[in-house]
Protein backbone atom coordinates (compact mmCIF):
# COMPACT_ATOMS: atom_id res chain seq x y z
CA UNK A 1 0.00 0.00 0.00
CA UNK A 2 1.75 3.08 -1.27
CA UNK A 3 0.06 5.54 1.02
CA UNK A 4 1.02 3.64 4.12
CA UNK A 5 4.63 3.53 3.04
CA UNK A 6 4.63 7.27 2.46
CA UNK A 7 3.10 7.91 5.82
CA UNK A 8 5.34 5.51 7.58
CA UNK A 9 8.60 6.42 5.90
CA UNK A 10 10.10 9.00 8.22
CA UNK A 11 12.12 11.91 6.96
CA UNK A 12 15.82 11.51 6.90
CA UNK A 13 18.67 13.91 6.45
CA UNK A 14 22.01 13.32 4.81
CA UNK A 15 25.22 15.14 5.59
CA UNK A 16 28.87 14.58 4.81
CA UNK A 17 31.46 15.18 7.42
CA UNK A 18 35.10 14.18 7.48
CA UNK A 19 34.81 11.66 4.57
CA UNK A 20 31.85 9.97 6.21
CA UNK A 21 28.28 10.24 4.96
CA UNK A 22 25.76 10.42 7.80
CA UNK A 23 22.05 9.60 7.45
CA UNK A 24 19.86 10.64 10.37
CA UNK A 25 16.27 9.67 11.02
CA UNK A 26 13.94 8.85 13.87
CA UNK A 27 12.52 5.41 14.36
CA UNK A 28 11.33 3.28 17.29
CA UNK A 29 11.17 6.42 19.42
CA UNK A 30 14.91 6.87 19.11
CA UNK A 31 17.37 8.93 17.14
CA UNK A 32 18.92 6.71 14.50
CA UNK A 33 21.82 7.08 12.14
CA UNK A 34 23.63 5.25 9.40
CA UNK A 35 27.27 6.13 8.74
CA UNK A 36 28.77 5.22 5.38
CA UNK A 37 32.48 5.13 4.70
CA UNK A 38 31.97 6.92 1.37
CA UNK A 39 31.08 10.32 0.02
CA UNK A 40 28.78 9.10 -2.73
CA UNK A 41 25.45 10.90 -2.26
CA UNK A 42 23.54 8.70 -4.70
CA UNK A 43 24.74 5.66 -2.83
CA UNK A 44 23.74 7.31 0.44
CA UNK A 45 20.18 7.81 -0.82
CA UNK A 46 19.94 4.19 -1.83
CA UNK A 47 21.27 3.02 1.52
CA UNK A 48 18.99 5.41 3.37
CA UNK A 49 15.94 4.04 1.57
CA UNK A 50 17.00 0.51 2.41
CA UNK A 51 17.87 1.14 6.07
CA UNK A 52 15.02 3.47 6.89
CA UNK A 53 12.60 1.24 5.04
CA UNK A 54 13.64 -1.89 6.92
CA UNK A 55 13.69 -0.14 10.30
CA UNK A 56 10.21 1.24 9.68
CA UNK A 57 8.93 -2.07 8.42
CA UNK A 58 10.05 -3.84 11.58
CA UNK A 59 8.70 -1.09 13.80
CA UNK A 60 5.31 -1.19 12.10
CA UNK A 61 5.12 -4.93 12.20
CA UNK A 62 6.21 -5.50 15.77
CA UNK A 63 5.58 -2.35 17.74
CA UNK A 64 2.96 -2.79 20.40
CA UNK A 65 2.14 0.89 20.27
CA UNK A 66 0.64 0.66 16.80
CA UNK A 67 -2.87 -0.55 16.10
CA UNK A 68 -3.69 -3.26 13.65
CA UNK A 69 -0.34 -4.97 13.36
CA UNK A 70 0.46 -8.54 14.29
CA UNK A 71 1.36 -7.73 17.89
CA UNK A 72 -1.88 -5.78 18.27
CA UNK A 73 -3.78 -8.75 16.90
CA UNK A 74 -2.05 -11.16 19.29
CA UNK A 75 -2.57 -8.86 22.27
CA UNK A 76 -6.21 -8.31 21.45
CA UNK A 77 -7.20 -11.91 20.79
CA UNK A 78 -7.11 -13.51 24.22
CA UNK A 79 -7.84 -17.20 24.15
CA UNK A 80 -7.49 -17.41 20.39
CA UNK A 81 -4.65 -18.76 18.34
CA UNK A 82 -3.08 -16.18 16.04
CA UNK A 83 -1.13 -17.43 13.05
CA UNK A 84 2.46 -16.20 12.86
CA UNK A 85 4.36 -15.60 9.67
CA UNK A 86 7.86 -17.00 9.35
CA UNK A 87 9.59 -13.89 10.69
CA UNK A 88 7.30 -13.48 13.67
CA UNK A 89 7.65 -17.17 14.41
CA UNK A 90 11.43 -16.85 14.49
CA UNK A 91 11.20 -13.91 16.87
CA UNK A 92 8.78 -15.66 19.19
CA UNK A 93 10.88 -18.84 19.15
CA UNK A 94 13.89 -16.73 19.99
CA UNK A 95 12.03 -15.04 22.84
CA UNK A 96 11.19 -18.47 24.26
CA UNK A 97 14.83 -19.52 24.02
CA UNK A 98 15.92 -16.37 25.85
CA UNK A 99 13.27 -16.96 28.48
CA UNK A 100 14.54 -20.50 29.04
CA UNK A 101 18.18 -19.48 29.05
CA UNK A 102 17.64 -16.65 31.51
CA UNK A 103 15.51 -18.71 33.90
CA UNK A 104 12.57 -16.48 33.08
CA UNK A 105 14.33 -13.14 33.63
CA UNK A 106 14.02 -12.15 30.01
CA UNK A 107 10.29 -12.16 29.48
CA UNK A 108 8.39 -10.50 26.65
CA UNK A 109 5.19 -10.62 28.71
CA UNK A 110 6.49 -8.27 31.38
CA UNK A 111 5.51 -5.14 29.43
CA UNK A 112 2.20 -4.80 31.26
CA UNK A 113 4.19 -3.64 34.29
CA UNK A 114 4.59 -0.35 32.51
CA UNK A 115 0.93 0.33 33.28
CA UNK A 116 1.95 0.97 36.88
CA UNK A 117 5.59 1.85 36.52
CA UNK A 118 6.10 5.12 34.71
CA UNK A 119 9.63 6.34 34.75
CA UNK A 120 8.88 9.93 33.95
CA UNK A 121 9.79 11.34 37.33
CA UNK A 122 6.15 12.40 37.90
CA UNK A 123 4.24 9.23 38.70
CA UNK A 124 4.61 7.71 42.15
CA UNK A 125 5.88 4.25 42.93
CA UNK A 126 3.01 1.74 42.76
CA UNK A 127 1.87 -0.15 45.81
CA UNK A 128 2.72 -3.82 46.38
CA UNK A 129 -0.96 -4.58 45.85
CA UNK A 130 -0.90 -3.03 42.42
CA UNK A 131 2.16 -5.09 41.57
CA UNK A 132 0.65 -8.31 42.94
CA UNK A 133 -2.43 -7.80 40.80
CA UNK A 134 -0.32 -7.87 37.65
CA UNK A 135 2.07 -10.71 38.47
CA UNK A 136 -0.36 -13.52 37.51
CA UNK A 137 -0.39 -12.10 33.98
CA UNK A 138 3.37 -12.31 33.52
CA UNK A 139 5.31 -15.38 32.53
CA UNK A 140 6.04 -16.53 29.01
CA UNK A 141 5.42 -20.15 29.93
CA UNK A 142 1.74 -19.32 30.40
CA UNK A 143 1.44 -18.69 26.69
CA UNK A 144 0.49 -21.46 24.29
CA UNK A 145 2.92 -21.55 21.42
CA UNK A 146 2.71 -24.22 18.78
CA UNK A 147 4.71 -24.12 15.69
CA UNK A 148 3.64 -20.90 14.03
CA UNK A 149 0.67 -20.20 16.31
CA UNK A 150 0.42 -18.19 19.47
CA UNK A 151 -2.37 -17.84 22.02
CA UNK A 152 -2.38 -15.47 24.96
CA UNK A 153 -4.52 -15.99 28.04
CA UNK A 154 -6.87 -13.15 28.97
CA UNK A 155 -5.03 -10.23 30.47
CA UNK A 156 -1.60 -11.03 29.08
CA UNK A 157 0.33 -9.08 26.49
CA UNK A 158 3.56 -9.47 24.65
CA UNK A 159 6.02 -6.76 23.79
CA UNK A 160 8.96 -7.38 21.51
CA UNK A 161 10.52 -4.05 22.44
CA UNK A 162 13.29 -5.86 24.27
CA UNK A 163 14.60 -7.45 21.09
CA UNK A 164 12.97 -5.50 18.25
CA UNK A 165 15.50 -2.72 17.96
CA UNK A 166 18.51 -5.02 18.15
CA UNK A 167 16.85 -7.36 15.67
CA UNK A 168 16.28 -4.43 13.30
CA UNK A 169 19.94 -3.46 13.55
CA UNK A 170 21.01 -6.99 12.64
CA UNK A 171 18.51 -7.21 9.80
CA UNK A 172 19.62 -3.90 8.30
CA UNK A 173 23.25 -4.84 8.73
CA UNK A 174 22.64 -8.10 6.92
CA UNK A 175 20.83 -6.35 4.06
CA UNK A 176 23.50 -3.69 3.64
CA UNK A 177 26.44 -6.03 4.04
CA UNK A 178 25.25 -8.14 1.13
CA UNK A 179 24.69 -5.18 -1.18
CA UNK A 180 27.30 -2.53 -0.47
CA UNK A 181 31.03 -2.64 -0.33
CA UNK A 182 31.91 0.40 1.81
CA UNK A 183 31.89 -0.07 5.53
CA UNK A 184 28.57 0.98 7.06
CA UNK A 185 27.66 1.56 10.68
CA UNK A 186 24.03 1.26 11.76
CA UNK A 187 22.96 2.91 14.97
CA UNK A 188 19.36 2.67 16.15
CA UNK A 189 19.17 4.54 19.42
CA UNK A 190 22.50 3.27 20.68
CA UNK A 191 22.23 -0.27 19.37
CA UNK A 192 24.99 -0.49 16.82
CA UNK A 193 26.42 -2.87 14.28
CA UNK A 194 28.88 -2.49 11.46
CA UNK A 195 29.01 -4.24 8.12
CA UNK A 196 32.77 -4.09 7.90
CA UNK A 197 35.89 -2.05 8.43
CA UNK A 198 36.46 1.34 6.96
CA UNK A 199 38.31 1.44 3.64
CA UNK A 200 41.31 3.11 5.19
CA UNK A 201 41.53 0.21 7.60
CA UNK A 202 40.58 2.52 10.43
CA UNK A 203 38.27 1.29 13.09
CA UNK A 204 34.96 2.82 13.94
CA UNK A 205 34.99 4.85 17.11
CA UNK A 206 31.90 4.77 19.26
CA UNK A 207 31.41 7.15 22.11
CA UNK A 208 29.49 5.86 25.09
CA UNK A 209 27.26 8.42 26.65
CA UNK A 210 27.72 9.17 30.28
CA UNK A 211 24.28 8.78 31.83
CA UNK A 212 24.84 11.80 34.04
CA UNK A 213 26.10 14.07 31.30
CA UNK A 214 24.18 13.18 28.19
CA UNK A 215 25.36 14.54 24.86
CA UNK A 216 28.91 14.09 26.04
CA UNK A 217 30.78 10.89 25.40
CA UNK A 218 32.27 9.56 28.59
CA UNK A 219 34.32 6.85 26.99
CA UNK A 220 35.34 5.64 23.61
CA UNK A 221 34.96 2.17 22.16
CA UNK A 222 36.73 0.93 19.03
CA UNK A 223 34.95 -1.42 16.68
CA UNK A 224 36.32 -3.52 13.89
CA UNK A 225 33.44 -5.95 13.52
CA UNK A 226 30.29 -7.17 15.21
CA UNK A 227 27.82 -5.17 17.20
CA UNK A 228 27.20 -3.44 20.49
CA UNK A 229 24.04 -2.79 22.44
CA UNK A 230 23.31 -0.74 25.48
CA UNK A 231 20.79 -1.24 28.19
CA UNK A 232 19.99 1.46 30.68
CA UNK A 233 18.70 4.92 30.32
CA UNK A 234 19.93 7.91 32.27
CA UNK A 235 16.65 9.72 31.94
CA UNK A 236 14.33 6.97 33.04
CA UNK A 237 14.27 6.42 36.75
CA UNK A 238 12.17 6.91 39.83
CA UNK A 239 13.36 8.51 43.03
CA UNK A 240 11.47 6.94 45.89
CA UNK A 241 12.30 7.46 49.55
CA UNK A 242 15.77 8.48 48.61
CA UNK A 243 16.35 5.42 46.45
CA UNK A 244 16.86 5.62 42.77
CA UNK A 245 15.03 2.91 40.84
CA UNK A 246 16.22 2.22 37.31
CA UNK A 247 13.70 1.34 34.64
CA UNK A 248 14.69 -2.32 34.39
CA UNK A 249 11.87 -4.34 35.91
CA UNK A 250 12.26 -7.84 37.24
CA UNK A 251 9.39 -9.84 35.70
CA UNK A 252 9.36 -12.17 38.67
CA UNK A 253 8.88 -9.56 41.39
CA UNK A 254 7.33 -6.78 39.35
CA UNK A 255 9.76 -4.34 40.90
CA UNK A 256 12.71 -2.54 39.40
CA UNK A 257 16.03 -4.18 40.01
CA UNK A 258 17.94 -2.56 42.81
CA UNK A 259 21.63 -2.02 42.50
CA UNK A 260 21.75 -2.28 38.75
CA UNK A 261 24.23 -0.17 36.82
CA UNK A 262 23.11 3.03 35.15
CA UNK A 263 23.91 1.46 31.84
CA UNK A 264 25.59 -1.57 30.40
CA UNK A 265 27.13 -1.73 26.94
CA UNK A 266 28.07 -5.11 25.51
CA UNK A 267 29.91 -6.09 22.36
CA UNK A 268 29.07 -9.33 20.56
CA UNK A 269 28.86 -10.83 17.10
CA UNK A 270 25.28 -9.73 16.66
CA UNK A 271 23.37 -6.83 18.14
CA UNK A 272 20.69 -9.26 19.29
CA UNK A 273 23.18 -11.19 21.41
CA UNK A 274 24.66 -8.00 22.78
CA UNK A 275 21.24 -6.63 23.67
CA UNK A 276 20.11 -9.74 25.52
CA UNK A 277 23.33 -9.95 27.50
CA UNK A 278 23.15 -6.22 28.35
CA UNK A 279 19.55 -6.54 29.51
CA UNK A 280 20.32 -9.62 31.59
CA UNK A 281 23.31 -7.82 33.11
CA UNK A 282 21.02 -4.99 34.23
CA UNK A 283 18.70 -7.58 35.75
CA UNK A 284 21.60 -8.96 37.75
CA UNK A 285 21.72 -5.77 39.81
CA UNK A 286 24.86 -5.62 41.86
CA UNK A 287 26.09 -8.84 40.24
CA UNK A 288 26.05 -7.26 36.78
CA UNK A 289 29.83 -7.13 36.37
CA UNK A 290 30.23 -10.65 37.70
CA UNK A 291 27.70 -11.87 35.14
CA UNK A 292 29.35 -9.93 32.32
CA UNK A 293 32.80 -11.26 33.19
CA UNK A 294 31.48 -14.77 32.92
CA UNK A 295 30.14 -14.18 29.43
CA UNK A 296 33.61 -13.46 28.09
CA UNK A 297 32.37 -10.56 25.97
CA UNK A 298 33.64 -6.99 25.86
CA UNK A 299 31.53 -4.69 27.98
CA UNK A 300 31.33 -1.32 29.59
CA UNK A 301 29.40 -0.97 32.78
CA UNK A 302 28.53 2.47 34.07
CA UNK A 303 27.48 2.86 37.69
Amino acid sequence: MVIEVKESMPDFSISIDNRITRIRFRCMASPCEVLIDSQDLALAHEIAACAVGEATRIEHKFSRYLDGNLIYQINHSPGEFVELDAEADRLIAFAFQCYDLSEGLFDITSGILQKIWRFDGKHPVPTQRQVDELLPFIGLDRISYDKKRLKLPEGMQIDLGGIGKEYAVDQITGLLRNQYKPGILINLGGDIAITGMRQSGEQWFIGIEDPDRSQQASSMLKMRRGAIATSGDANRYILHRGKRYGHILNPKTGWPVEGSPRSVTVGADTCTDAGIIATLAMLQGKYAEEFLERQGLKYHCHR
Partner: protein
Amino acid sequence: MITIINPVSSFHRRFQYLALVSVLLLASCSGLGVKPWQRDIHAQQEMAMDADSLDIAVDAHIYFSKEASSGGQGFAGGGCGCN
Protein backbone atom coordinates in the same frame (compact mmCIF):
# COMPACT_ATOMS: atom_id res chain seq x y z
CA MET B 1 20.26 -9.21 42.09
CA ILE B 2 18.52 -8.81 45.40
CA THR B 3 15.43 -6.77 45.77
CA ILE B 4 14.39 -6.10 49.33
CA ILE B 5 11.00 -4.52 49.55
CA ASN B 6 8.97 -4.61 52.72
CA PRO B 7 10.96 -7.55 54.09
CA VAL B 8 8.37 -9.09 56.42
CA SER B 9 5.50 -9.50 54.03
CA SER B 10 7.77 -10.45 51.20
CA PHE B 11 9.47 -13.14 53.24
CA HIS B 12 6.13 -14.49 54.35
CA ARG B 13 4.80 -14.52 50.84
CA ARG B 14 7.93 -16.16 49.51
CA PHE B 15 7.85 -18.78 52.24
CA GLN B 16 4.28 -19.69 51.42
CA TYR B 17 5.18 -19.82 47.78
CA LEU B 18 8.19 -21.95 48.53
CA ALA B 19 6.15 -24.36 50.62
CA LEU B 20 3.55 -24.67 47.90
CA VAL B 21 6.19 -25.19 45.25
CA SER B 22 8.00 -27.83 47.31
CA VAL B 23 4.82 -29.78 47.78
CA LEU B 24 4.09 -29.58 44.08
CA LEU B 25 7.62 -30.59 43.23
CA LEU B 26 7.55 -33.58 45.52
CA ALA B 27 4.16 -34.58 44.23
CA SER B 28 5.03 -34.35 40.59
CA CYS B 29 8.73 -35.10 40.72
CA SER B 30 9.18 -32.12 38.48
CA GLY B 31 11.95 -31.03 40.79
CA LEU B 32 14.09 -33.53 38.97
CA GLY B 33 15.83 -32.15 35.98
CA VAL B 34 18.28 -29.58 34.81
CA LYS B 35 18.29 -26.07 33.47
CA PRO B 36 18.68 -25.58 29.73
CA TRP B 37 22.35 -24.72 30.04
CA GLN B 38 23.07 -27.81 32.11
CA ARG B 39 22.47 -30.14 29.21
CA ASP B 40 26.09 -30.51 28.23
CA ILE B 41 26.31 -34.09 29.44
CA HIS B 42 22.88 -35.15 28.24
CA ALA B 43 23.71 -33.66 24.87
CA GLN B 44 26.46 -36.22 24.41
CA GLN B 45 25.39 -38.84 21.96
CA GLU B 46 26.46 -41.69 24.27
CA MET B 47 24.05 -40.49 26.97
CA ALA B 48 20.96 -40.82 24.80
CA MET B 49 18.70 -43.75 25.63
CA ASP B 50 18.79 -44.74 21.98
CA ALA B 51 22.57 -44.52 21.63
CA ASP B 52 24.09 -47.56 19.93
CA SER B 53 20.85 -48.15 18.08
CA LEU B 54 22.32 -50.82 15.82
CA ASP B 55 23.46 -52.81 18.85
CA ILE B 56 19.96 -52.50 20.25
CA ALA B 57 18.50 -53.73 16.96
CA VAL B 58 20.93 -56.64 16.71
CA ASP B 59 20.30 -57.69 20.30
CA ALA B 60 16.55 -57.41 19.86
CA HIS B 61 16.75 -59.71 16.87
CA ILE B 62 18.97 -62.29 18.55
CA TYR B 63 16.93 -62.44 21.72
CA PHE B 64 13.66 -62.42 19.80
CA SER B 65 14.77 -65.56 18.00
CA LYS B 66 16.06 -67.35 21.11
CA GLU B 67 13.70 -66.32 23.89
CA ALA B 68 9.97 -65.91 24.42
CA SER B 69 10.11 -62.23 25.35
CA SER B 70 10.56 -59.25 23.11
CA GLY B 71 10.03 -55.54 23.17
CA GLY B 72 9.97 -53.29 26.17
CA GLN B 73 12.51 -50.82 24.99
CA GLY B 74 10.67 -50.62 21.68
CA PHE B 75 7.83 -52.41 19.99
CA ALA B 76 7.62 -56.15 20.51
CA GLY B 77 6.97 -57.23 16.95
CA GLY B 78 10.06 -58.59 15.30
CA GLY B 79 9.17 -58.63 11.66
CA CYS B 80 10.94 -61.93 11.61
CA GLY B 81 9.77 -65.47 11.10
CA CYS B 82 12.40 -66.75 13.48
CA ASN B 83 10.01 -67.15 16.42
